[in-house]
């Protein structure tokens, strides 16, 4: 993981939850790596990383664009024409997922409505599965490419809203496999590639996964949060890393970049 070079010494005092998430996401990205980005905050995070410590980050969008520069304002979709500006290679969905399956993608950003202790995600339905699959209580949009990224990216970073009803011991439906049941070689035995989720970023904490049990653990608390407050918003027991620390708030420069250069019209980063 990147040692975040703290070039900007002054911390911002005024920042929104989504700006905190974007900053945390950007700081997890290593320079010169290939990042598969979904719509929304990951697009802001990648651009922020490119403008700070990661000028040689290579974004890939599932619509088919490889290595573009997002200089036409933020895309509204992973199939947006804005994902193609100055791209090195453009094909289609088969191509971008074949790249993923082959192993070209280092990091995938994915999200979901529910997450369990092993980083498995649900973005399909709320209700009884399989009984009520055809008529769920709430139908969510579906896998899209998340189910593919979770299967084949070298590792994934999850962004989930930190609420009790979303951090659950058991998912109502598993759309994107993480560490499955946490057993050794669970992913390999299921036919999956890649190492699964490495980080979970929320407005309350930066989390990772225990090497042995593959259960989620708190690595750092976000500004203003404590282990207790993070646990109180989580529907399962979180482990706590022995080197727990308090996450550095966004710097003034990071916030300036987000507000002035990356997302001035607040498409994704609400203030």
């Amino acid at each position, binding site marked *: 993981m990147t040692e975040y070079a703290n070039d900007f010494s002054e911390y911002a005092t005024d920042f929104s939850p989504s700006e905190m998430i974007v900053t945390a996401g950007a700081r997890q990205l290593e320079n010169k790596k290939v990042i598969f980005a979904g719509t929304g905050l990951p697009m802001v995070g990648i651009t922020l990383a490119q403008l700070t410590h990661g000028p040689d980050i290579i974004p890939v969008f599932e619509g088919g664009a490889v290595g573009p520069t997002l200089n036409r304002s933020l895309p509204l979709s992973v199939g947006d024409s804005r994902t193609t500006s100055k791209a090195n290679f453009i094909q289609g969905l088969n191509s971008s997922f074949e790249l993923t399956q082959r192993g070209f993608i280092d990091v995938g950003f994915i999200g979901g409505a529910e997450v369990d202790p092993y980083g498995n995600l649900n973005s*399909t339905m709320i209700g009884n599965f399989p009984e009520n699959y055809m008529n769920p209580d709430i139908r969510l*949009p579906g896998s899209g490419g998340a189910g593919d990224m979770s299967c084949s990216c070298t590792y994934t970073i999850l962004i989930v809203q930190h609420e009790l009803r979303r951090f659950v011991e058991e998912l109502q439906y598993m759309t994107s496999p993480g560490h499955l049941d946490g057993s050794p070689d669970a992913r390999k035995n299921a036919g999956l590639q890649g190492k699964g989720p490495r980080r979970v970023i929320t407005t309350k904490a930066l989390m990772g996964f225990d090497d042995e049990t593959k259960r989620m653990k708190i690595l750092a608390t976000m500004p203003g949060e404590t282990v207790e407050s993070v646990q109180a918003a989580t529907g399962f027991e979180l482990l706590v890393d022995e080197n727990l620390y308090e996450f550095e708030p966004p710097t003034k420069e990071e916030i300036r970049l987000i507000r002035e250069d990356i997302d001035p019209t607040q498409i994704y980063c609400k203030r």
Partner: protein
Amino acid sequence: MEWTGLSPDDAREKLEQKDKSKRDKRMSLTEAVKEFVKDGDHVGVGGFVNSRPPVAIAHEIIRQGRQDLSLAFQSAGLVPDYLMGAMAIRPDHFSISRLEFAYVGHEYAGTSSMLRYMTENNKIVIEDWTNYNMSTRFKAGSMGLPFLPTRSGLGGDIEKCNRSQYIKCPFTDRDILLVPACHPDVGIIHVQEADIYGNCRIKGQTFTCPEMAMASKNVIVTCEKLVEHDVIATEPTRTSIPYFAVDAVVELPFGSFPGLCHDIHYYGKTHLEYYKGLTNGFRKGVVEPLREYFDKYVFGVKDTDGFIGLMPYEQLKYARQVESRSLHLQQGLQEPGA
């Protein structure tokens, strides 16, 4: 195995019988839909979410009315939302019985209220896949193979609600997933350029349009601009879909609007969000505004000219101006009504 659309054997047989001659395939959209979209058809929806969605073709299908269509696509927004919206308003006139898909929604503009309405009220049969699963299914179809192996869409619950099959790979001894080919009765695709024979040039991302075209029994193409055959023949490596896969060519500028068409126009955000808002209202029980929308914008017009004719010029102009420009050149442009 119960095939939706054509079985691989039927798809092969139909293609052997097909007239593959290089002939002028121009026709009106009304004629094309009349000839190639039948009740009960399995329809492959081209584009990706709201990029190059075949909106004009979807509107024409709705106007003519069909029953029991099934839809196959990876990720889509406007097209399934228009089709499900029409079914919600006039089920006696138009209906869908089944969706095979990975995602219905509008990304930045939110989830699909029509998908919620149809599923939560048990009005439609669904089959979930991942994006790559669906792309692979079209690719298998395009290759004349009954299935392809993939390492996507396994390990979780998706494989439990679709027709994929786990096997042990005979070479590695590891589990791998097989997904069945998808051969739609008709593929509906919007592109930037085509010649009169149906050779298509897609600009920007191809999504899975070429694979879908090659897999489908019939293909209706709408294009922004009809180009001379010589243009195609001078640089044939740029042809995304060859003519003999295409059955109808319809020149229809703004055939994707209010979706995006790469290099031609950006999203018609104002109108897209307007329609999206009406579907949100419908799900919450406010029925009339959605009905009025269809009466005005779909049933109330004869064709796409009529639909686009109802769009304020400022919205079309903005969508054209803002497309494919750097931030610097976008300065001073303001979305009308936004």
